């Protein structure tokens, strides 16, 4: 959805019933988009193992309609699980750009959020936020499956607030470790 000029937003609301119309459409779109978040299998390291454990039968992400797709073309959410090295960064950027809109990024684990314990390592990017705009930071090393599900639910709530008239504030959400 392209960037909608603000004055259009006011003009539409003034249109009798416009507000309700837009709200109605938003309601359906966001319900569909938040309940069917297909995520890109993008496991880098230890958080990937915990992501697989979350998707397995004990915690089961399929309950929320989250399916793991292998290609970026069919993914809505990119879960970056693991530390991001200098050599890997261009690939992450390219994968992010290959994903169709509307797309979101969930940085899982301390390393993806802010570089984790590798402060003095020369080949680690201090947080995936330097490469792709991140929506939800889930801290923890690795975050427990409940944390990841908490982060995903927060992302669902964020998607429900979106509107086709351009996104309101995009402050990233942070879920504690």
């Amino acid at each position, binding site marked *: *959805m392209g*960037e909608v000029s603000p004055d259009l937003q006011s003009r539409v609301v003034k249109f009798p019933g416009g507000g309700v119309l837009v709200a109605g459409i938003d309601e359906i779109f966001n319900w569909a988009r938040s309940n069917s978040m297909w995520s890109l299998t993008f496991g880098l390291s230890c958080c990937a193992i915990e992501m697989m454990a979350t998707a397995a039968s004990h915690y089961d992400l399929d309950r929320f309609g989250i399916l793991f797709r292998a290609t970026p073309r069919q993914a809505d959410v990119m879960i970056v699980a693991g530390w991001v090295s*200098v*050599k890997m*960064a*261009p690939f992450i*950027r390219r994968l992010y750009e290959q994903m169709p*809109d*509307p797309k979101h990024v969930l940085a899982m684990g301390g390393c993806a959020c802010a570089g984790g314990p590798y402060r*003095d*390592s*020369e*080949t*680690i*990017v*201090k947080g995936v*936020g*330097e*490469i792709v*705009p991140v929506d939800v930071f889930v801290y923890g090393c690795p975050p427990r499956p409940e944390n990841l599900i908490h982060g995903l639910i927060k992302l669902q709530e964020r998607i429900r607030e*979106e509107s086709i008239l*351009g*996104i309101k504030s*995009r402050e990233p959400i942070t879920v504690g470790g």
Partner: protein
Amino acid sequence: MMERDFGSALRTALAGLPEGAVESLEVSGSVATLRVNLGSLRAVLESLKSFPEAACDFPANLTAYDTGEEMFLVYRLASIERGWQALVLCRVDRSEPAAPSVTDLWPGFNWFEREVYDMFGVRFEGHPDLRRILLPDDWEGFPFRKDYVSRPSGSPLRGPQPIDRGAQG
């Protein structure tokens, strides 16, 4: 009993070498530590592998370490049938580090030698394709040397990435 025949086996294996080849040899438990000078490193390793008594045919480990003044290569060869291991230490000149490659004796050391080159800059003559293995190819310098000045890790995409917070593409 283990020390005696491992020690004696080693001495018979290394008997054929020129005098200064093996600087020191001690055996403790099932591990023998040899200090070898660079010139006859290849000969010692070949004899360790080929000599039936020693039969160190298993390439356990190959690495290097740099103490700031001198740099050492560390080879660890094991003999699975006989249950003992040989730790071969060899001093390498720090400014121009070079060593004979043993990839033809043990293909397993192929990547280990590439890693030592990648991290210490030791050029292994005779290695099939000596390239960087872990670091990006355009990386300057050899990080594990003591005199390596560590670079602050800027964003890999050349400079801080403008996070387009507002625009939702």
